[in-house]
């Protein structure tokens, strides 16, 4: 990344240049954790209008940056020191890479003279983070700094979005240099295609028009490119039935008659049948065709013509061959499609399938706790106000993704690609920093919650209206379920054997909590919690709730 310098600006430190450039790019908040190798940046942040949020672990900082990015639509920024600070960011970076979330991560690196000497807190951050970032740079010369920062923000938030990391040695942060803050990154090898090829778009529309059983399959790309409105406009105008992957939960309402469910391992049998057997043309939009969604590639779209829209050319034909590929930004491409349809309407007949999606068709094992989880999500869905909702990873995630129905709470924000337990709590906090009008809710399991529960303190410190819903089964529910299904019910390492007093924990951290054991309390407790402006943890005791729900069923029957 070279830079062009006009005139010669006054020297300033690298740290100052970084902070100024972030201000210029509209960065409002940075999630970070200090250490010896990034203190010059912190020193500069003292005088900046950028708010710094001190997390309790760097993993929290990375996930908060993801949450922020999702709501703000601009890159979330996280900051860590060298060595352990950098390695603690790795999971969050990988999460952002797999779910295409724009994050700019800054790590301090030790003094340039010491690199390669196994100095204190030295790790090879550049090579460790290379495979978990969209792009990364180790800044070896102060003269490269400005262009690298400009490039980082541009690369993170353009094309297929993703995390970019800059590793900045402490002496580069301190060096006085005439940084030209307006210098641009020159990136001749990076030219994301934005507009889809119009010839391909026409072919796609013709194929849809001729189809007897057309189907739209949507993935995380729709939300990532901010194309929800364009998508809905297309499917409503053409009356196209829609199925989705996990990453598109709530893009189209579960009650919409066009909606036919979710595909994949944890999806609906109907939706899987539609893609595998029934449809004759499938329009796949922003779907990476991973093994969780396309369980049997040899069956998928076997009888169908596949149209695929993706901004990343490498997604086309990666796991499945596409008949009509369109490389381009989804929002732009759908706009082009909608414009053409205005002029020349297509699919002028009644949809071949409507309103067939039923809850009963999910492929999730119906275990004891399932019914109680459904009760909780039904009550949550009744809370009729805007919420940002995140999940963690496990059974609760899969159930939430099927049973959350209130459009004001959706699209759900979940870790789909990496499946990172501990994602949800910090991600929810990050969402709030981008939209302080809206309360945030994290749906979690006891296992996931404990992975990053220290970040609850950040919510308390900043008075974040956060509700953590712990669906407590006292164990790693999904692991137990796998052991039941695939390992002959041979259980190991799924039971915690020791419960946690969640209300007490919440109280100890300055929030409040409640343990819910009576099904009648589910609705009121949720209402109270979400209306409370104080961070809280609701622990739903799935065992007791299940027993009592059973009892009341029996009473009613008797």
């Amino acid at each position, binding site marked *: *990344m070279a830079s062009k310098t006009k005139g010669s600006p006054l020297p300033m430190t690298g740290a100052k240049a970084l902070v100024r450039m972030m201000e210029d790019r509209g960065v409002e908040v940075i999630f970070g954790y200090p250490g010896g190798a990034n203190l010059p940046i912190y020193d500069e942040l003292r005088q900046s209008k950028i708010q710094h949020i001190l997390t309790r672990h760097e993993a929290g900082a990375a996930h908060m940056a993801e949450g922020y990015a999702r709501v703000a639509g601009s890159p979330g920024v996280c900051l860590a020191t060298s060595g352990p600070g950098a390695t603690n960011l790795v999971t969050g970076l990988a999460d952002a890479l797999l779910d295409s979330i724009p994050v700019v991560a800054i790590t301090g690196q030790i003094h340039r003279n010491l690199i390669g000497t196994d100095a204190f807190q030295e790790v090879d951050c*550049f*090579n460790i983070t*290379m*495979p978990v970032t969209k*792009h990364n740079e*180790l800044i*070896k010369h102060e003269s490269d700094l400005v262009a690298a920062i400009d*490039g980082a923000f541009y*690369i993170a938030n353009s094309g297929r979005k993703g995390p970019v990391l800059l590793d900045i040695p402490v002496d580069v942060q301190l060096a006085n240099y005439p940084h030209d803050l307006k210098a641009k990154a020159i*990136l*001749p*090898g*990076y030219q994301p295609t934005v507009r889809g090829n119009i010839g391909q778009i026409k072919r796609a529309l013709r194929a849809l028009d001729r189809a007897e059983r057309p189907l739209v399959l949507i993935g995380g790309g729709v939300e990532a490119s901010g194309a929800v409105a364009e998508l809905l406009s297309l499917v409503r105008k053409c009356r196209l039935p829609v199925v989705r992957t996990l990453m598109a939960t709530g893009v189209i309402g579960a009650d919409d008659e066009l909606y036919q469910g979710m595909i994949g391992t944890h999806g609906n049998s109907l939706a899987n049948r539609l893609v595998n057997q029934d449809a004759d043309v499938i329009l796949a939009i922003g779907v990476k065709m991973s093994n969780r969604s396309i369980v049997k590639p040899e069956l998928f779209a076997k009888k169908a013509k596949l149209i695929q829209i993706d901004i*990343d*050319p*490498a997604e*086309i*034909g*990666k796991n*499945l*061959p596409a008949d009509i590929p369109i490389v381009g930004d989804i929002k732009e491409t759908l706009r082009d499609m909608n414009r053409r349809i205005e002029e020349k309407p297509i699919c002028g007949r009644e949809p071949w399938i409507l309103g067939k999606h039923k809850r009963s068709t999910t492929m999730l094992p119906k275990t004891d706790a399932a019914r109680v989880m459904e009760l909780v999500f039904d009550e949550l869905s009744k809370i009729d106000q805007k919420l940002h909702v995140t999940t963690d990873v496990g059974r609760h995630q899969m159930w939430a993704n099927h049973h959350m129905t209130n459009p004001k709470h959706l699209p759900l924000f979940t870790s789909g690609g990496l499946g990172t337990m501990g994602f949800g709590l910090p991600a929810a906090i990050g969402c709030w920093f981008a939209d302080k009008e809206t309360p945030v809710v994290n749906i979690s399991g006891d296992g996931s919650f404990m992975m990053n529960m220290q970040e609850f303190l950040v919510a308390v410190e900043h008075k974040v209206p956060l509700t953590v819903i712990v669906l407590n089964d006292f164990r790693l529910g999904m692991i137990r379920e796998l052991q039941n299904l695939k390992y002959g019910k041979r259980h190991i390492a799924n039971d915690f054997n020791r419960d946690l007093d969640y209300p007490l924990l919440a109280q100890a951290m300055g929030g409040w909590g409640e343990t819910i054991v009576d099904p009648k309390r589910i609705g009121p407790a949720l209402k109270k919690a979400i209306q409370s402006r104080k961070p809280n943890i609701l622990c739903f005791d799935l065992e007791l709730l299940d027993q009592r729900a059973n009892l009341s069923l029996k009473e009613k029957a008797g």
Partner: protein
Amino acid sequence: MQSTENRHVIALEVEDKPGVLTRISALFSRRGFNVESLTVGHTHQPGVSRFTIVVRAGEAELEQIRKQTQKLVHVLKTYHVLDREVEPDERMKAIMAASNQVQHAVMREMALVKVHYDAQSSRQINHVVEVFSARMLHWSGKDLVLEFSGTEAKIDAVFKELDSVSVLESVRTGKVAMSIEEEKVDL
């Protein structure tokens, strides 16, 4: 997407940045692409280096290799190059017609070989030197260092011929390739 694996040559033009070799080799290893040889060097353009990579891959995988490497920010261009001495099949011809990312190329490889030169081996070595127009780079009084260059098939033949003499050390560069435009017409 299953197709038979063949050897293919990929040429990459890259920005000459620190770590670019690691980025490329890390990508190949992460995606499970099979590399047979890899060469890299500067080009006439300042700041631009060129990789020639021989891979073993099926057609779909080859396409992925090209697209995934093209995604790296520092990669400027990627080509699938075809040895002009190998007649492309129908499919390949169709692909070539549709894409400017497939090009015909001339390819060469170089080898350095150190052999023990004595009364016993001298005849065979002299023969190989003459037939394959080797250059003699160094003579220690006992050992001889020879340079061969040519097509991969020629270098293979050199080693076959040297089977009977005692080779002390040897190294092959792997292929380098250069695209040739006009060859496209006489397909």
